[in-house]
């Protein structure tokens, strides 16, 4: 018997692109023979959904990976799976067979999707600036997510992509939905009804009626403006007035409901659409996953949580960011420039140390040493979460260096990440004779 349904992953990220074929699946793996190299991107099993039938037409492993198609970016279109918590006390994928055990079929599944883009509303505080889209899905057709807004010109909308309930088959009996995001286009605003005005460059369509809504011409001025403020397109106009530009990014909620006799079970998940990962073999040093893990498990680590592998992954991610930035230039600008707000000028590091080859060597050597199984030693150079405002020379040089945190100050790791490292620092310097870290 099914006790509960969940959508996995509970937060799925889609990424823009106008190419007709979504991005193929791949793995980003560390090659054990080349542990200092980039993560190797290896093609992985990809599901091809038939647009018309909604069935998985085939699964295949592509010969090679291509992030673009005919000059267009291939969108990343995630699948959301429904999982069932059964009497066995385990989560398992919800399938035709599990449904059958409950006297139900895939036709008893209903999806509802609600997404929105509230970027204009966040600034104008006018709910009529909210761009929202919804879909109720009971079949396997593509359901467009048409973003509409009270302040749009009549008949205008922003396409946020579409969702499709993948039709379960004997070969692929699982219950899943696919979210394909918008193309990543920019949309414009005008005070006279399009196409009355001159064509506005940069935008694929003029949707916003600036004669009724305040987004066109908006200037951040309230005490609750975004931080940083003014992060909308104002063109070259020094007034900072918004040109009323909008995009097809959104986030929202997906709901799957299944009628099982007298019961209706519902699972909820979240989706979001954002820009591509332009360096897909690199992982951010501090990711949404790290925030969620800290919120879930707390900042303190339990014995056994802290492993050399976890610490190596943190260092590897730092390395992946470092080698895609110009450390010498960032030492002059970047965070060094932001510190000027507090009266600190000048570079962060000694000039000689930020030669990018040298910086790369340094991070590599830390990875090499960790591979020996000996404990990390660099806790003292980590920036604590409450040291983000330490702009002394020593404070500015702590790790991660030359990066910015959510508060606009120098980046600190999550407290949990830092504690993972510290727990190992406190542990034995050398693994025991058998090579195991206790």
């Amino acid at each position, binding site marked *: 018997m099914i006790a509960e349904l969940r959508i996995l992953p509970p937060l799925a990220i889609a990424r823009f692109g106008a190419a007709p074929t979504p991005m193929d699946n791949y793995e980003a793996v560390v090659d054990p023979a080349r542990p200092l190299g980039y993560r190797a991107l290896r093609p992985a099993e990809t599901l091809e959904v038939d647009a018309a039938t909604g069935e998985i037409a085939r699964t295949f492993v592509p010969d090679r990976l291509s992030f673009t198609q005919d000059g267009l970016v291939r969108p990343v279109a995630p699948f959301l799976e429904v999982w069932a918590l059964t009497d066995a006390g385990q989560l398992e994928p919800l399938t035709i067979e599990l449904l059958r055990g409950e006297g139900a079929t895939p036709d008893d599944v209903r999806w509802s999707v609600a997404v929105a883009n509230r970027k204009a509303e966040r600034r104008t505080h006018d709910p009529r600036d909210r761009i929202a889209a919804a879909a109720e899905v009971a079949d396997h057709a593509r359901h467009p997510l048409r973003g509409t807004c009270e302040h749009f010109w009549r008949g205008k909308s922003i396409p946020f992509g579409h969702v499709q309930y993948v039709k379960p088959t004997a070969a692929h009996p699982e219950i899943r939905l696919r979210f394909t995001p918008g193309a990543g286009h*920019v949309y414009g605003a005008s005070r006279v009804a399009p196409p009355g005005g001159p064509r506005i460059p940069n935008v694929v369509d003029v949707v916003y009626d600036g004669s009724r809504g305040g987004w066109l011409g908006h200037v951040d001025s309230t005490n609750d403006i975004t931080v940083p403020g003014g992060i909308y397109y104002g063109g070259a106009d020094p007034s900072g007035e918004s040109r009323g530009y909008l995009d097809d990014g*959104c986030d929202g909620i997906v709901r799957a409901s299944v009628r099982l006799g007298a019961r209706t079970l519902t699972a909820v998940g979240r989706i979001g659409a954002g820009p591509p990962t332009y360096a897909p073999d690199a992982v951010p040093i501090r990711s949404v996953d790290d925030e969620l893990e800290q919120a879930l498990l707390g900042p303190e680590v339990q014995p056994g949580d802290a492993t050399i592998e976890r610490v190596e992954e943190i260092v590897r991610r730092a390395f992946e960011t470092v080698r895609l930035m110009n450390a010498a230039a960032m030492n002059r600008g970047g965070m060094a420039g932001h510190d000027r707000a507090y009266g600190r000028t000048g570079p962060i590091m000694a000039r000689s140390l930020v030669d990018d080859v040298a910086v790369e060597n340094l991070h590599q050597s830390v990875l090499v040493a960790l591979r020996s199984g000996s404990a990390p030693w660099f806790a003292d150079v980590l920036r604590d979460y409450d040291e983000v405002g330490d702009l002394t020379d020593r404070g500015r040089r702590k790790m991660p260096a030359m990066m910015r945190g959510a508060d606009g100050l120098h980046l600190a790791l999550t407290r949990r990440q830092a504690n993972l490292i510290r727990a190992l620092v406190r542990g034995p310097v050398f693994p025991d004779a058998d090579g195991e870290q206790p």
Partner: protein
Amino acid sequence: MSIEPANLTAQMQHRAAGNPPSTLPAAAISNCFPGLEFDFRNIWRRIFEGIELHEAHGLVTATTNALSRLRGLELVEAAGERTLVEVRGPTPTDPDAVLDASFIEWSNALAGFLRTSAGQAVTCRFARPPANPNARRDATPPIVATAELVVRPLFAHSDVTDGPTGLIDEAIAQPGELTQSLCSPWQNDYRECGCYYWAASRPDYVNRESTPQGPSIGNDWMARSYDPKVYHEPDSGGDPEQFSYEDLFDDWQGLLRFIVGGQDSE
């Protein structure tokens, strides 16, 4: 295939069949100022029942009627954890002077009690915002209000397991709120930050190669031309050698290059 219902990290990190790794939270930057995929600071706005906070600092932006006295104040302490830190650094006369105070990000500020106090009331202390927003702040401003506020669980509750699931609860953020404070349009963020903490999504320095002089040469990712290898400083949309805002709006797909192994890819 099965997952322990209590293993929430496994659920959050679950790679659904066919999903590339870029669909996972681990691929999304969170040291968000404001971010790219999400402004993840938004998940903290409703973390205390009865009030709404600014995503980036202590301002109480909305309250229930019962707590209206808190509106417009700033949360400076919760469950004994301070949300302001001193900004310190040298001045001409003092090598380690207090320069200012700043709110620290909610994620780390609240982490100490978030999990252990979910569903329970904690003591929150509030101060008045500085009259002059440009004036130097005090890290320990006078407390003008105190309230016992219940910590709203960040994660949805499972009645079956009587514990959290891996889902950010619906009460925490409505559709559109996780992205509402990002750039509009998103391309702006590729142009204006000047600090590359998100190199995984937005590389800065690519096609690097060592030189006989020691340091490397390479391309500025946002350069119009990759030949010769020149790094353009500062990063600026006004530099004719670099992509402008308008270039990105018009043709970001044609202009921006995927970087694999540090080199151009397609």
